C-alpha cells in the first residue's frame, strides 16, 4: 500500500521534472537570439529534412483519403438524392478535422521520429556535449532550427494535404461517379467559410505542429544515450505525440465548433 503510494508519488515527481526540463529546453531554443547569417542555412536544411521529405507521404495519403471520403460519402448521400453535397462534406471534414489531425499523425511518424532519433544519436555520439565544449549552445544550434522548421512545415503540409485530398475527392466524385462539377465546387464554396473553417483548421495545424515538434525534440534531447534509449525515445515520440494530438483535437474542436 505504502509502496503503491510511493510509486505514484515518484511517477508524479518524474513527470513534473520532465515537463520542467522540456520547458527549459523550449525556452532556451525559442528565446535564443537568432543569427540571420548562420541561422538561415540551418533552417533551410531542416525545412528540407522535416518538410520536403514528408511531402511524398502527405501527398499520397491526402490523395487516397480524399478519394475514399468521396466514395464513402457518395454511397450514403446518393440514397437521399443529396450527392451534390459531396463537395462540402469532403471539404469540411478535411479542413476542420482530417487535414490537421492526419497530417499531424503522419508528421509524428515521419518527421518526429526522425528528429528524435537524430538528436538521440547526436547525444549518444557526444556531438551535443562536443558542441557545448566548443562553446556553441546546442539549443541554438541544434534544437532551435529544427523547432522552427517543424512549426513552418507542418501547417504547410496540412494545407497541402487538404488541397490534394479535395482534388482526390473531385477525381472520384466528379470524374468517376458523375457528380456535377459545378455544384461540387459552388455548394462547397457556399458552405465553407474562410474564417471559420480554413483558419480554424490552420490554427489546429499550428498547435499540433508545436506539440509534435516539441515532444520529438525533447524526447531526443532527454533520451538515455544508448541504442536502447534511442529506440525507446523514438517510440515514445510517436505514441505520445499522437495521443497529444488526438486529445488536443477534441479540446480545440469543442472550443472552435462546439458552441
Amino acid at each position: 500500500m505504502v509502496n503503491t503510494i510511493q510509486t505514484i508519488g515518484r511517477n508524479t515527481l518524474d513527470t513534473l521534472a520532465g515537463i520542467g526540463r522540456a520547458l527549459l529546453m523550449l525556452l532556451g531554443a525559442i528565446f535564443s537570439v537568432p543569427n540571420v547569417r548562420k541561422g538561415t542555412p540551418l533552417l533551410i536544411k531542416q525545412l528540407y529534412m522535416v518538410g520536403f521529405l514528408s511531402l511524398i507521404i502527405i501527398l499520397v495519403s491526402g490523395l487516397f483519403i480524399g478519394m475514399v471520403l468521396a466514395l464513402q460519402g457518395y454511397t450514403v448521400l446518393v440514397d437521399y438524392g443529396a450527392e451534390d453535397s459531396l463537395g462540402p462534406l469532403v471539404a469540411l471534414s478535411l479542413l476542420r478535422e482530417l487535414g490537421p489531425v492526419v497530417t499531424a499523425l503522419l508528421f509524428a511518424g515521419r518527421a518526429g521520429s526522425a528528429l528524435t532519433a537524430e538528436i538521440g544519436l547526436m547525444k549518444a555520439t557526444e556531438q551535443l556535449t562536443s558542441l557545448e565544449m566548443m562553446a556553441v549552445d546546442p539549443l541554438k544550434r541544434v534544437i532551435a532550427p529544427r523547432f522552427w522548421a517543424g512549426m513552418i512545415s507542418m501547417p504547410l503540409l496540412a494545407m497541402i494535404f487538404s488541397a490534394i485530398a479535395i482534388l482526390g475527392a473531385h477525381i472520384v466524385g466528379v470524374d468517376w461517379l458523375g457528380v456535377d462539377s459545378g455544384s461540387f465546387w459552388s455548394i462547397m464554396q457556399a458552405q465553407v467559410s474562410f474564417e471559420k473553417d480554413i483558419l480554424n483548421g490552420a490554427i489546429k495545424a499550428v498547435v499540433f505542429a508545436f506539440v509534435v515538434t516539441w515532444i520529438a525534440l525533447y524526447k531526443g534531447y532527454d533520451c538515455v544515450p544508448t541504442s536502447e534509449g534511442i529506440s525507446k525515445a523514438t517510440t515514445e515520440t510517436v505514441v505520445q505525440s499522437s495521443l497529444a494530438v488526438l486529445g488536443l483535437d477534441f479540446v480545440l474542436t469543442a472550443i472552435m465548433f462546439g458552441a
Partner: protein
Amino acid sequence: MSQSLVEIKDVTFSRGDRIIYQNMSFSVPTGKITAIMGPSGIGKTTMLRLIGGQLKPDSGDILFAGESIPKMSRSELYQARERMSMLFQSGALFTDMSVFDNIAFPLREHTKLSEEIIRIIVLMKLEAVGLRGARDLMPSELSGGMARRAALARAIALDPELIMYDEPFAGQDPISMGVLVKLIKSLNQTLNITSLVVTHDVTEVMSIADHVVILADKGVIGEGSPEQVAQSESPLVQQFLQGLSDGPVPFHFDAAPYNQDLLMGSERG
C-alpha cells in the same frame, strides 16, 4: 604566475547519494602532458566535465588559468571554453558534415575569418594529423582511428591552450594507437599545448606523460613524474600499474561469503 594551467582544489563531487570525489586536489602543469589514470568506473571522464564546466562540484574550486570555473557566468564560461578543447572517446564528429566542414566549424562559429583563410587553416590542421587527403569524406566513411585524428584536428582548430583527451587509445589497433601517441606528443611540443590525457592504457601513456595522476578511492592515490609513480610504495598504485587481477582492488564484487551464499540458495529452493 602559474606553473599550472588547471588546478583542482579540495573538490568534492557526488552524484545522487554516491560520492565520486572527496576533497581531491591535483594540478595540471602548463605546457606538459599530464596523464590521469585509474580503474574504470571511478569517474575520470567526470573529471574532464568538471574542468569543462559542464558539471559543478559540490564544494572546492577548479581554476583554469587562475580563474574559477564553477563561479563563472554562462558567457564567461563560453569564453573560457574557446580556450580549451576536448577530444571525445567517439570523436564526436558531426555526422551531417564532411571532414573539412567539421574542422572549419569552430572557426566559422567563433571567428570572422574569410572562407579563403579558413580553408588554409583547415588544410594546415589536417596536414598535422595526416588527413589532408580525406577532407571531402563524411565521418561515416572514416575508420575509428581516422575519425579520432579528424576530431583531433578539429580540437586544435582554434589553437587552444588546453586539450583534454578522453580515453584516446580505447579500442584502437596498435598502429593507430602508435599514431595517436605520436600526435599527442608532437602537438604538445610544437604548439606548446597543455595536454590532459585520461586513460587506463598504462604503457602507452607512461611513455609520453610528463606528469601522472592516479585516481582511486574517491581521490588521488599517487602523483608525480612517471618514474616517481612507478617507484610508489602504495600497493594500489602497483596493482594498477602492473595490472594484477587481485589486490587492494578486489577481484570479487562485494558479496556474502561464497559457501554461505550457495547454501542459502538451496534453502530457498
